């Protein structure tokens, strides 16, 4: 059996990749994807430790997370659509009228 610490490293790596993508990408859709990665990093933890602790809480919760991620994307896509309509772009760095 794979030691549980490996899963932690994996999830941390996935989380970091997501974070990196989020910080470097300017396209809103990539932004969304990066967030998905980060959520899935959490899911890795849930599932791995669910197995390790021997209860189903983690696995069940990972389902919740996925569902909520979907909902989040739905709202996100909606906002990106409006963004495109108003700014003619899906670049998240374009809207910076409000600052300071």
């Amino acid at each position: 059996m794979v030691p549980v610490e490996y899963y932690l490293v994996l999830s941390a790596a996935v989380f970091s990749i997501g974070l990196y993508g989020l910080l470097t990408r300017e396209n809103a859709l990539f932004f969304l994807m990066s967030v998905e990665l980060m959520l899935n990093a959490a899911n890795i933890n849930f599932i791995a430790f669910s197995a390790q602790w021997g209860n189903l809480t983690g696995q069940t919760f990972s389902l919740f997370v996925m569902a909520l991620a979907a909902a989040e994307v739905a709202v996100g896509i909606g906002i990106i659509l409006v963004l495109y309509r108003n700014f003619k772009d899906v670049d998240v760095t374009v809207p910076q009228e409000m600052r300071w």
Partner: protein
Amino acid sequence: MAGAFDYALAIAVLPFLSFCLAVGVALSGRDLLPKGGALPGIAATGGSLLLSAWVFLTVSGGETYNETFYTWAAGEAATGSLSEPLTLSFGMLLDPLSAMMLLIVSLVALLVHVFSLGYMNDEGETGLPRYYAGLGLFTASMLGFVLADNLLMAFMFFELVGLCSYLLIGFWFRREGPPSAAKKAFLVTRFGDYFFLIGVVAVFATFGTAKFAGEHSFPRIAEHALAGEATVNTFLGLEPAAWFTVIGLLVLGGVIGKSAQFPLHTWLPDAMEGPTPVSALIHAATMVAAGVYLVARMYGFYALSPTALAIIALVGAFTALFAASMGLVKDEIKQVLAYSTISQYGYIMLGLGAGGYVAGTFHLLTHAFFKALLFLGAGSVIIAMHHNEDMWEMGGLKERMPVTYYTFLAGSLALAGIVPFAGFWSKDEVLYEALVHGLGTTSGLGTALLVAYGMGLLAVLFTGFYTFRMVMLTFHGEPRSETAREAAEGGWNVKLPLIVLGILATTVGLVNMTPVADLTGMHDIELLNMWLSGAPESVSVEQYHHLLEEFGGIHAADVPSYLAGGLSLALALVGAGSAYVLYGGADPEPHTEKLGSLRGVLYNNYYQDEYQVWLAENVVLPLSKVADVFDQAVVDGVVNGVSSVSLFGGSRLKRVQDGLVTHYAAMLTLGLTVLLVGFAVYGGWF
């Protein structure tokens, strides 16, 4: 049975009521009173005079009065360094000194009121209710001051006197000069009063009481303290004797201010901007007299301190000489009189400082009458000259205004100190006291008194000269202007006061003819001396003699008084004679020109005014401007600076929010990372 003392308070209250009435009339803005309020004033001062006379008679019957009638403020407990609760009260001290002064003040005030009918009413002045209100309050304040049984009450009325002088000197407020002079008078005397007030406070703090007379009076306690029979608070680590000297000198500050002694004399000549009757009142009986009266009133305290006495004598003598020298060159009649006032009060100070309590009081008495006379006479001249005061425009008024001339002459003789006019006797006695005590006293005080005597003697010469220069220029010779040629004397209200005062100026000196007494051995004729001896023990002449010898170390040498009197008389005659020679002609020349630059110095009063004005305008005002700039720039600058720095900080801080969402995410991550690392290290997680 109700006696004079039961009504004594009314002496001060009556003029106050006339003040209230006049203020009411002034406020109404209508001409409600005949003569613009003069009649109530005359009635009130007349009443005061009668009551004063009654008090005088009662006192001469050997009765005195020293009671508190109103407690102004009273503490409940002994606090600080005091050993008993403080009580600040009003009371009356009616003894020979105050009774005499009451008489002088109310008489002069009455005559000034009468004279004002001629000087103000007949000249068609406006604002008469205001004028008479001022006179009323002035009289009331001075009478209150004279009645005072303690130093605080005295101070309070002293200040009110200052207020009244301000109001009356500035009576013609629509002109430029009078308001300025009024301000100066108040301000300069206020400067003196500052020290006086410290003195009053110090007296309370030291003795717990400020009463003048009685066993529980501060001079008495001080005496006991010096004798080692009582303990008092002293401050600043001083011994009682030194501390009492300090207190005495502090109070003296007020005296110097009010009595126009050097160096606070500068207000007085300017005060001539006021109506002439007011000048008479100020100079003869009220404001200026208040200062020296105060010294006499608390003489028992000054007698304890040789240093204070020496300073009083030196200041007095120097002022006498100094002012007299300036009087030599003045062109305006009232200016000459003004400097003569300063000079004469210098004599009074000299007398008091020299241990001549009776002499100083005597000169105060005689001076009150002859100076009032001279001012009213000058007022009469000024009326005739249509308010032109320049003596070079006058001349030859003798024929046109005989009453004025003869009374003025009487006053001048008195001022110059020519026998047998009033001033001779009193001035002579002052100088005599200075001489004998100067010779008899071995300490530094003796030397000081001799120096003072010398200056006083020289001033006699000057006095004789400027007095007769004034008389010659004004009344003798040929008229030097159209107005002078057409001058005419005023009505009864001008003449009556002049005559009354003329008689007094001629005769009042006879009440204390010490030289005659010495010559004849008839000491019964030293009426004033006897009169003042009739005081309660704590304020009697004998007590003062005792104190002067015991604590002041003053002793009298044996010099015949008629010798000293003869010397000063001779000097006065020399002065008067030279004035007659120089200015007695039909068309005198302005000989003062020959003095050259010295004349400039004298004419400009040794630049005393200039340096004081310079101090005010070039030191104090710029200093205040600098302080203002400092306040705005630095003190307020710090306040505004704190706000600016905060706002600047805010404006920088908000730049973090630069509008780029990727930056937000980066900073968010960075922040979280820092926290994570920090806590991981701090908590030792891994």
